[in-house]
């Protein structure tokens, strides 16, 4: 679970790093990742039996890529509709936040409808059963925790994503532009950075990872609903802050840490309090170490 948070946190952290804006709507993006893959693979193609071997790998990759792209696309659309007009109008920060909330609501509750086939409707839906949880070939016990294939998938997937992003941010031109924009927008612009494009890129990348997380969620838990975005969204934000908002590696670290804390509290206090603990982490972090564990620079 911690890895999922980390993935989602990446999205938050990236947008914040560049725009100093908390992309409230990111939780909807995440949910959308799950929904889109559910729809495309489950409903449209009707894939529902566990796969093995190479077919498995391909299917999984396909699912993740589709989910990622879809979410990335939506994130960009969101930026276009909900944030760009505000930027053009020099809006106050409050406006962005409220608009983000509006966007999040709009998308999330739209998903709750069922008048179009790709909207899930109010109830939970069965995610295509691609990866069998009971697959013995890959499951083993590690430190008293049962590691099954889906969980392995999440971990591996997240790690790969993280590595990719890290390389992207630090080694490519796009990555440099993003970093430049996050450090000093005016200078970056003067140096020829196309601000609009970079912002789109940032949203896209963040969205992609959110979407991948969504798809992984579906694989991991087997069922999805329209409202799965919200709580993980807030927790992921907490994770991002915990690790240092605006910092990629921090997001990763934060996600893992939060997952760990959550699980430990389940053991110590009982699982009903899990959410409460997660929610209390945020104010605690903000009070005692507001810059997070790894500080605020996007490059880590």
């Amino acid at each position, binding site marked *: 679970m911690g890895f999922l948070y980390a993935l989602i946190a990446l999205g938050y952290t990236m947008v914040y790093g560049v725009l100093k804006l908390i992309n409230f709507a990111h939780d909807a993006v995440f949910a959308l990742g799950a929904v889109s893959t559910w729809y495309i693979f489950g409903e449209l193609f009707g894939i529902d039996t566990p796969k093995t071997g190479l077919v498995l790998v391909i299917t999984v990759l396909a699912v993740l890529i589709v989910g990622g792209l879809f979410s990335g696309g939506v994130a960009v659309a969101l930026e276009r509709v909900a944030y760009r007009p505000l930027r053009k109008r020099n809006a106050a920060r409050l406006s962005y936040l409220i608009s983000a909330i509006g966007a999040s609501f709009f998308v999330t509750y*739209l998903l709750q409808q069922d008048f179009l086939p790709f909207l899930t409707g109010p109830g939970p839906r069965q995610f295509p059963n691609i990866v069998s949880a009971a697959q013995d070939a890959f499951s083993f016990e590690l430190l008293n925790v049962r590691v099954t294939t889906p969980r392995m998938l999440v971990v591996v997937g997240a790690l790969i994503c993280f590595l990719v992003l890290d390389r992207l941010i630090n080694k490519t031109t796009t990555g440099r532009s993003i970093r430049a924009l996050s450090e000093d927008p005016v200078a970056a612009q003067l140096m020829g950075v196309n601000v609009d494009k970079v912002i789109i890129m940032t949203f896209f990348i963040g969205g992609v990872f959110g979407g991948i997380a969504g798809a992984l969620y579906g694989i991991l838990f087997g069922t999805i609903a329209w409202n799965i975005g919200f709580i993980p969204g807030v927790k992921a934000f907490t994770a991002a802050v915990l690790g240092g908002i605006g910092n990629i590696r921090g997001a990763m670290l934060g996600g893992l840490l939060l997952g760990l804390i959550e699980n430990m509290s389940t053991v110590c206090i009982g699982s009903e309090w899990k959410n409460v603990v997660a929610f209390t982490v945020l104010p605690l972090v903000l009070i005692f170490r507001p810059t997070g564990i790894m500080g605020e620079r996007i490059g880590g």
Partner: protein
Amino acid sequence: MAMTGVPTRKSAPETLRSHLDRNYPRLSQKLPDTFVTPANVAFQGWRKLGYFRYLLAAILMATIPYLMDNDIFPILQGGYGINILFTTGYWILLTLGLSVVVGLAGLLDLGYVAFFMLGAYTTALMTDSGSPDQWHLVTWSPWLVLPFAVIMALVAGFVLGVPTLRLRGDYLAIVTLGFHEIVRQSVNNLTITNGSRGIAQIPSPVIDLPFYYQEFGLDAEYYWWFLLIPAILGAVLMIKHLDNSRVGRYWSAIREDEVAASAMGVPVTKMKVLAFMIGASVSGVAGWIYAIKIGYIAPNSFPLLQSILVLCAVVIGGLGSISGAVLGAILVVTLPEIVRELSGGDEIFGFSIEAGRIAIFGALLILVMIYRPGGLLAAKRRRTELQEAGAADGVVVAEDPGAHVKTRDADLWDDRKKGEH
């Protein structure tokens, strides 16, 4: 009734025209004198009434339930109309309260309903409610419990406010959100609050005076509304008084420039906590009323969504203005109903109204932010603030790059970074 701090108290009495010019200049240009001058009589007359206005308003408001019992809108008859009225009523209270926090002091509170919940639960736990083995602190009559609901809310406002009000806007928002959930989950998990099953049979209040006895309840539905009237008018009065006072000015100063305010002697954190507490207390009162009317509360009665919806109402209606808050509340409560009526059912082209309501408000929120950032009926001051309060470079929202949590140091740190001494 827009809220702007009227500068000079001793200048000539304001005319309708000057009021319009000051607050709604574009509208003022469109209205010719032939219309404004006679209307001015009503305007100034109304002003002259002073505190009598509230009495008048109370009487007018009291007649609403009777007006609803007519044949033009037959649906309003019977329980339905009263329910809508009641819901609108406590929503107005909620938006008014949040308006103080968000509109006057500029603090983004996403967990406002937590106080509502606390008020309701305090009421439940201090009256003779629930099943026989329900834990109670005391079992008093609902009237007696009211001050305690308020106190509970005040304390909660204080507890939430002190550690968190140094945080910057975005973070404050998320933390308040978390607060709501923490409260809700805690109530859900504790046995004394009967967990997720909630508490039922919260007693209705009874007026037991020597010359008059009245039970609130099924045969006396109107009385709930009558109870709301003083609450609402009281809140309005309080807000007006605060706005035009030292406290209100301090809140405006904090909204405009916290650092400068602090440098001019404004105890910033104290003022923010105060705003929080005031808002919380109003919410607590609303919670009290809710508990005793509906008679049943459970953690699920107060979803996080509701907190955000109240915020929506305040923002869409208009920040910092009383009429805006009222409008917002009315919109949020009645719009879905109106749409439902017009479409003759629960769906439009398969679009479920009940759930879709939120989606619509979400979209509305975005639109409002883009086109009318202060909300529909915002006070003039807020409108100008929100329209122009952006970064000079217009590139990104880089209000204070790198500045983070504690606005005090961080702000001036940035001044340093800009290359001064």
